[in-house]
């Protein structure tokens, strides 16, 4: 096992990452000198209490927020130095997102929502439609393709969100409390789905959560408190949980 780990590439490298907010005269260190790696194909879980800085780390990794200092290297590219336009292109090609509040566009159907990343990538109409339909079938929503988010349950909406995150086959998927608004049963369904899809395409996942029970899905668990890493754990039995 350990040899296999060495052979795998580093998909995410975080070096001395800092994010400092200014509130008047006070400086708040939301992320305080964090460094860690995530290997290709790993499921990494950032766990911490509310306000621990775990969501901020995820936003920094995704390039949604700008780091105060430090480097973030995704697939060998340092995104802290990318221009807005190149970052957008990088998101199109390499990143997928699953959000706690699903963040679907309310006026679009499930199918159109899933198609969106492909539209931004300028994929051909027929190709992207086919891909999106296949993806919705995989998440078990073949009967809900033409439904708007408001006509679906939370679990269904999150499955649309997952389909959207995976449709462009990005190498890295960021998930921010993906089950935060779901009940226990649906949580298991959604987590299983994410894990399964990631394994199929050998994708790397970084998930943020406050729920310790979800760590069992992860290969690597990083505990965050007050903007610092307090514990890193390799979970050898992660695959058994699925």
């Amino acid at each position, binding site marked *: 096992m350990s040899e296999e780990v060495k052979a795998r590439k580093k998909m995410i490298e975080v070096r001395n990452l800092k994010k400092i907010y200014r509130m008047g005269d006070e400086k708040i260190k939301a992320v305080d000198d964090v460094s860690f790696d995530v290997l290709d194909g790993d499921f990494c879980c950032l766990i911490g209490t509310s306000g621990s800085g775990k969501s901020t780390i995820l936003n920094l990794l*995704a390039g*949604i927020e700008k780091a105060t200092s430090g480097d973030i290297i995704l697939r060998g590219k340092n995104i802290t130095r990318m221009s807005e336009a190149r970052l*957008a*292109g990088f998101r*199109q090609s390499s990143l997928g997102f699953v*959000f706690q509040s699903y963040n679907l*566009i309310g006026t679009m159907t499930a199918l159109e929502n899933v198609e*969106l990343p492909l*539209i*931004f990538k300028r994929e051909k109409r027929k190709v992207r439609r086919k891909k999106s339909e296949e993806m919705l079938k995989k998440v078990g929503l073949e009967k809900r393709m033409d439904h708007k988010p408001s006509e679906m349950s939370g679990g269904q909406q999150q499955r649309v969100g997952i389909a959207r995150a995976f449709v462009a086959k990005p190498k890295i998927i960021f998930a921010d409390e993906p089950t935060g608004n779901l009940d226990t049963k649906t949580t298991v369904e959604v987590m299983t789905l994410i894990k399964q899809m990631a394994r199929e395409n050998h994708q790397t996942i970084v998930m943020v959560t406050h729920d310790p029970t979800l760590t069992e899905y992860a290969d690597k668990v990083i505990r965050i408190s007050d903007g610092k890493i307090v514990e890193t754990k390799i979970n050898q039995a992660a695959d058994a949980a699925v």
Partner: protein
Amino acid sequence: MNLWDLLKMGLRNLSRRKARTALTVVGVVIGTVSIVSMVSIGIGINETFEKTYMENGAMTIIQIQQYSSSFDESGNWTGDKKQTLDDSLVEQLRGIKHVKAIAPIIDQNGQFKSGKYSTYVQLRAIGRDAFGEFGFPELTYGTYPTATDNKKIVIANGTLQSFYYYSGRKYEEKTIDPTQEKITFTFPEWNYQKNPRKKDYKIEMNPGLGNFAVMEESDNWEYNSTCYVDMDFFKEMWKQYASTLTVADRKRAMQVLESYSAIYVNVDNIDNVVEVQEAIKALGYGTYSDMQYLEPLQQTSNMIQVVLGAIGALAMLVSAINIANTMVMSIYERTREIGIMKVLGCKVYDIRRLFLYEAALIGLMGGIIGIMLSYLVSFFINKYGQPIFAAIMQTSAVYDVEGAKFSVIPFWLPFAAAVFGMFVGVVSGYIPARRATKISAIEAMKSNQ
């Protein structure tokens, strides 16, 4: 994102708030209708002015007559002045800026005969270069005189229709076709006394000789009634004619060749006519042009056009503000959506384009509907606007109120209006669109709209 996806998304967003979109479009419609109908009225007035004058003569021509009437300050006739029009004046005129062509002219009376029918005409000798420069009409037969082929008379269409026969009891009119019937040209007998021992001077028109041409019917009465010959040929004709006269009259007749009866000056552009006229006046010659009467009228009509255009532009400005307001509202509503799009990899450039397209679509829709309504408005102005315009336009006697069109929409105006509508949309959508691109993705997604 490709164009089609952007347009589709834009249309979807517009149809999401139908009432608001419709109201904004109505604003653009009102703006477009006011601009188009105002401009069309301006064009209509101008066209009518020009048409009225085109019937009477070419607009760019200045005439310097041998006998020039002079007027006092209040416009009363004070007498005629004889001016010497010779080649040295022609040279001076050539030095004036904007002068395109100069045609010295000698006018003489002439007579055509065909069997028992005859007609008197004005025969105008003119430098042959003028045939290409003074807006001469097309020919229905023959060619205009050239350097190698100048021995011909160019007959006006009206001349051929005015042949008559009068015997004291009977008056008959006839239209002669010189390609079918034989006609001859002579100078009339009343001016000079003929030497009875000499043969009469006459030229037989003959299609075989190619010594005549026929002009097509023209709106310009001068070209419709005056016959033309090349100046060099005229001098030849006149010398031959003079040799058939008595010795005393021969001398008197030869004086005709010493001074031109008029000089016509063609100016390169209608706008420069008055300027050239002033320059000629400075040389001490009295002049005449149609333009000198039209210019004050045209100034009035230009002013009316500007005022009308300004009214239309004001309405358009209001609708531009309206579009900007709609776009600001729309972006405010869609903050979260914009954030999501950014996170999913939509480029800033595409977000800006999306909002610009939406604004342009509003402008375009308003523009197209506005144009259609404008045609309707134009129709009603032409149909029912007469009493109003008759009252406003009382300034000009030449303005033929009865047959006039008050609103003319030229073919380019609808296109210009549609493009303008879109342009207004894009301009007023630009700042809101830029605002949309500045929205931070993280803030946007936190907002609970």
